């Protein structure tokens, strides 16, 4: 890197350039991307370190206080090592427990046959719809905030967010699906059915769980005629190999 570039930056920023030199420098910045990027880095460093210099005493005092509080509220490294070891034991135990759970789940899935579609749908709602997927690096928009609220069981907030997203973006079928699911878990079945009907009608979607979720809602609501209508829908899901067809097939076999 050429030191004279840095000297130029300093002269420019401190106002030590003649007007024609300034114009020439600004023209160079516009046409030379490398020079421009270097100038931005210089400016950022200078601004951030100026601030650091100005408040260095305050920051040192703050760091010192934070370190003292860390000792009180977080364990020291020695304890952490012990904890890591405990974590290893915990992981071993957890792995074994997961194995047992897996075997039990397999046992119940394959050998237990005393459940009807309604009970299976009930379990589906309680287990499969308990959490919606959210990723750490994706939680940036209203839909993700709605998912976060849902996972936190803040259903009133999540429904507001999902409905707002869907209103603003009627092509966002996920927002409609999540709104329906939220109504389903809060037992507002007629609203859930409205959402899933609307979702099922979106024929352009490559993957559409609308019909399956409508069947789940009917099984949950369990009014006269709901069971039969749900069975017909589940059969239709199977025939059309739509979203949820594997569950539908399993449920109707019971």
């Amino acid at each position, binding site marked *: *890197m050429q*030191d004279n*570039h*840095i*000297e130029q930056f*300093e002269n420019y920023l401190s106002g030590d350039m003649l007007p024609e030199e300034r114009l020439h420098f600004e023209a160079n910045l516009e046409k030379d991307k490398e020079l421009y*990027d270097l100038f*931005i*880095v*210089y400016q*950022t*460093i*200078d601004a*951030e*370190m*100026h*601030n*650091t*210099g*100005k*408040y*260095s005493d305050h*920051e040192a005092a*703050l*760091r010192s*206080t*934070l*370190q003292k*509080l*860390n000792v*009180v*509220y*977080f*364990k020291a*490294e020695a*304890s*952490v090592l012990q*904890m*890591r070891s405990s*974590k290893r034991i915990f992981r071993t135990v957890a792995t074994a427990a997961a194995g047992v759970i897996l075997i039990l789940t397999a046992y119940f899935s394959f050998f237990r046959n005393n459940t009807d579609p309604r009970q299976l749908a009930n379990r589906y709602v309680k287990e499969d719809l308990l*959490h919606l*997927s*959210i*990723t*750490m*690096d994706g*939680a*940036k*928009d209203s839909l*993700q*905030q709605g*998912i*976060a*609220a849902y*996972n*936190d069981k*803040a259903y009133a*907030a*999540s429904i507001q*967010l999902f409905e707002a997203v869907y209103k603003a973006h009627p092509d966002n079928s996920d927002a409609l699906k999540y709104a329906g699911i939220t109504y389903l878990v809060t037992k507002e079945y007629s609203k859930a059915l409205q959402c899933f009907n609307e979702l099922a009608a979106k024929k352009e979607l490559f993957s559409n769980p609308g019909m399956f979720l409508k069947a789940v809602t009917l099984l949950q609501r369990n009014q006269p005629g709901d069971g039969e209508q749900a069975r017909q829908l589940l059969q239709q899901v199977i025939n059309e190999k739509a979203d949820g067809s594997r569950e539908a097939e399993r449920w109707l076999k019971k």
Partner: protein
Amino acid sequence: MLEELYRKFSEKIKWMIIRNNGSETDAADIFQDALLSIYNKAKTGDFTLTCPLEAFLYLICKNRWLNTLNKMNTQKVTITDTKGFDYIGEDNFKLAEDCVLQQERKNLLTEKLAEMGDSCKEILRLSWSGIGMDEVAKQLNVTYAYARKKKSECMARLISLVKHSPKFNSLKW
């Protein structure tokens, strides 16, 4: 005030980091760094928080920890414990990202400054302390022209060190 922040929020941050392949020491570092990043951002005057502090602090810690995991080439982590993210708003997501980036840039600058010679450290420290270069020259007992030249050399060296760091490109300068 600080103690209250620790008392109210440290457990939750600890829990989030430990559940995502971290240790309690990692949690302590991340929590401390998050508070420093808020302080540093507030110093610039460009800081208006429009969501609960708890949610904002959690978001900063989460972003910092995600960056740390990515640097360690750990697989992407999925977090379902997102309490407090409702109502946080896009502007606060952006503010949290700025805080984290600013703090990470500052950490990198501090690390690279430590690798430089004493004379460079001293002239840069003085020039960033808010005094003019004529005063810097006086304090170092050198001429004004020499102080300016030396400062340029030292800045060029610092920029070169920073640009050669593998972290440089991810820090959005």
